[in-house]
């Protein structure tokens, strides 16, 4: 199939390349339709939002450790919806902090990092395509995304401030201004997520079309690198799940502003409808945020172990299984919501089943490092840590999948620990690893390995110091989303743990400084990167930096699967996808 697809002639690519050299500043850096530039735009935007989300998290942690204590230095400059007159966080302001922390991290950091940055950068380069199928759409998607970020954050300047009903925005708290007190903020949240959804849908349609139609000759589906498989499956999840959120956000907006009653308790409305719609999106969303990281990590581990990925097809099928099952587990967020108890039993079953493909992936990563020749680059360290952190996050999920245990630990800090092990120790560690790994192809220079290792060690230690004790807090009955734990008898004795977590969280926040310095310094002063610094087999390492608009001078032909490392009988320990195996060498089937 891939041999017959439309693929621009090489001459056409070159002419567009020639044309590209004359692009104006505006067309090159602002409204760029080159997937590589769009990826960099996403990268800088996501890093900005990461700082915003991180600062919000620092605010959350400050309040939990030192409730009622005025915020040093900046306290007096914060708006009145956030702090009291003496500069300490108000309980309602605290609700706004964690609401926006989660919203920013999910929609403006993790998703754009994984899908916007690495989806855009890697898909055309790895499949041998000159660009995305719809470059205009692609540029539009980025600007919609950025716009949605500013809509979400703009409510900071509203008199009632940020939305404060949680990133899950359960109705009727979210749908009635008299209950949440921030009609404007909550409306911004609805509109922001709606626009963000448009960006996701445009991106997803683009990725699917590109991967199906624009693979270079010989790039069969089972020769696709795993990050591409992961992004392909993720794009389907986006396309099916995000419209549900968009619709729900629109309904919420109407409830909030036009007096409809989709989600209200009276007038035939149904509060649980919001939860069903939100989690029908929200659970696939969890996999949207982890699958691409799994793909990126798989590749980093294979390259740095100098070994083919263990069980390539098992990895692909496991991701497909996660994608499909991901749509029938949303009710495990609702075991104790008032949903029918029989439904809880059903969702508990599907949730247990979806743990199986995750286990398969873990075993295959272990199989990949087995017998390898492991190079401990910074990227590899983050990828290896991803596996362990994902194991912890996966295993803690089993507690909540068991309905009776959920009866006890639902909505406690146990779940906060769980999601951060998956999203920070998982997704974000994957993102860090991928940045160190693909940086040479993005900026033509290497990042500094020593500073990379320092970043890794600090992030790893303080990540665990921050989030591991949250399991204990949860088991001890600490509710999530309470502004002041010292109000409760059973939590007062826990306060030292909260202080410890907060200090660790501050250190974790500071640990990104070596990363940021390394990132920006290396851009200008880093060692010049060779074409293929990691001796990798996939196509992006066959193009020079800066890669021309159109990527490949001649259309590459693909001869075999993506991870042919340490093939016996060859002098080099890697065999690029666009080079046929020598006659003397037989590649093993995967």
């Amino acid at each position, binding site marked *: 199939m891939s041999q017959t697809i439309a693929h621009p002639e090489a001459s056409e690519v070159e002419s567009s390349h020639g044309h590209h050299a004359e692009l104006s500043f505006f067309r090159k850096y602002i409204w760029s339709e080159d997937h590589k530039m769009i990826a960099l735009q996403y990268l800088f935007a996501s890093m900005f939002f990461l700082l915003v989300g991180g600062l919000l998290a620092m605010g959350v942690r400050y309040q939990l450790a030192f409730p009622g204590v005025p915020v040093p230095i900046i306290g007096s400059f914060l708006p009145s919806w956030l702090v009291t007159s003496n500069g300490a966080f*108000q*309980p*309602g302001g605290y*609700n706004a902090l964690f609401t926006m922390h989660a919203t920013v991290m999910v929609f403006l950091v993790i998703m754009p990092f994984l899908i916007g940055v690495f989806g855009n950068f890697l898909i055309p380069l790895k499949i041998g395509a000159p660009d995305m199928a719809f470059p205009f759409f692609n540029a539009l998607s980025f600007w919609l995304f950025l716009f949605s970020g500013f809509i979400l954050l703009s409510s900071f300047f509203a008199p009632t401030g940020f939305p404060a009903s*949680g990133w899950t925005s*359960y109705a*009727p*708290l979210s749908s009635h201004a008299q*209950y949440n007190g921030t009609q404007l903020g909550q409306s911004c949240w609805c509109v922001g997520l709606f626009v963000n959804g448009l960006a996701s849908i445009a991106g997803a349609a683009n990725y699917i079309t590109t991967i199906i139609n624009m693979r270079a000759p010989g790039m069969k589906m089972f020769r696709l690198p795993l990050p591409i498989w992961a992004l392909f499956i993720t794009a389907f999840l986006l396309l099916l799940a995000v419209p549900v959120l968009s619709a729900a956000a629109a309904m919420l907006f109407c409830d909030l502003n036009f007096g409809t009653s989709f989600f209200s*308790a009276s007038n035939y*409305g149904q*509060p649980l409808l919001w939860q069903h719609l939100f989690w029908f999106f929200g659970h696939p969303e969890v996999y949207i945020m982890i699958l691409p990281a799994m793909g990126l990590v798989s590749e980093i581990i294979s390259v740095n172990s100098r*070994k*083919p990925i263990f*069980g*390539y097809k098992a990895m692909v099928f496991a991701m497909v299984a996660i994608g499909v099952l991901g749509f029938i587990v949303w009710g495990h967020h609702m075991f*104790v919501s*008032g949903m029918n*108890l029989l439904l809880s*039993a059903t969702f*508990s*079953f599907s949730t*247990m*089943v979806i743990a*199986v493909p995750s286990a*398969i992936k873990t*075993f*295959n990563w*272990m199989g990949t*490092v*087995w*017998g390898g*020749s*492991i190079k*401990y680059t910074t990227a590899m360290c983050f990828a290896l840590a991803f596996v*362990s952190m994902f*194991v912890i996050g996966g*295993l803690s999920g*089993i507690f909540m999948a*068991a*309905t*009776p*245990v959920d*009866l*006890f630990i639902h*909505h406690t800090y146990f779940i906060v620990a769980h999601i951060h092990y998956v999203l920070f120790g998982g997704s974000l560690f994957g993102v860090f690893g991928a940045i160190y790994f693909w940086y040479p192809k993005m900026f033509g220079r290497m990042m500094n390995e020593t500073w990379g290792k320092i970043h890794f060690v600090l992030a790893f230690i303080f990540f665990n110091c921050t989030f591991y004790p949250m399991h204990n807090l949860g*088991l*001890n*009955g600490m*509710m*999530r989303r309470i*502004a002041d734990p010292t109000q409760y*008898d*059973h939590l007062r*004795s*826990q306060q030292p*743990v909260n202080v410890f977590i907060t200090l660790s969280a501050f250190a974790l926040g500071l640990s990104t400084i070596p990363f940021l310095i390394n990132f920006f310094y290396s851009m200008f002063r880093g060692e010049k990167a060779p074409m293929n610094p990691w001796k990798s087999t996939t196509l992006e390492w066959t193009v020079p930096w800066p890669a021309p608009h159109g990527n490949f001078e001649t259309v590459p032909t693909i001869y075999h699967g993506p991870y042919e490392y*340490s093939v016996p009988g060859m002098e080099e*320990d890697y065999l690029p996808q666009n080079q046929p195996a020598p006659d003397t060498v037989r590649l093993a089937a*995967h």
Partner: protein
Amino acid sequence: MSKQSSRTSLALSAIVTLALIASGACAHAAVRTSDLWWMPEVASKGGKDIDQLTYFIYYLTGGVFVLTQVVYVYFLIKYRSRKGIRATYSHGNNRLELVWTAIPTAIFIGLWGYSNHLWWDVLHAPSPPDTMEVGVLAYQFGFSFQYPGADGNLGQSDVKLIGNNNPFGNDPNDTATKDNFQSGILELPINKPVRVRLNSRDVIHAFYVPQFRVYQDIVPGRTIDWLWFTPTQLGSYQLACNQLCGSGHYNMKAQIEVVSQEDFDKWYKEKSAAAITAAGNTPARSK
């Protein structure tokens, strides 16, 4: 794998497994000495079964974690890049894939069976005939409670009738509701099953008591009446709202007192009599 290295890995996993078991034992001990690191002492009947399942999953996942991590770290050390040693060329092994698909599947389905059985037992089983029913009303930002009164019958209620004059939505035509009395604290007799009838006046709240190991959202517009439990420890507890409900959420709580049956009867009689006097009528008896 050489004999030497397999022995090393065996020793390593043995040490870590022992450490894990020891930490579990410490955790058990910690329940009594200090509650800094572990669950608060369980104070309900069903809670004991839930704890058993929690411990079961704790040891299961702990074992899996230690085993996988020992093997993983061992691989990471053993297979570090060394001069002159080339990586093994292998694309995988289908038999292994089958094994590590089948075993987790069996474990997870078994675990679901255990957990689901308990879910039915704890939550769905009909409560015993001597169960006392208590009405719970949640609102921004507090709880109030309604007891059945002298007749021991809470009577009919309807969520549509909830209003300022009728906070619990009692059916005015049902005489059993006439002698109900209200309370600001949740007073419970020890070892007697209690069923809560949960209503909310505005947004979603939750009924959460960590010592009883119970959590249930309270949804406006409907009545949730399937949650029941049996307190087994005397003492004071706090009922906490655990569903974000607005700016006062962090402080939305109520006192729970678990007392002896005698103390409870005394308290109940006083409250009941006071309510009748206040209402200025005699209790309507319904059998």
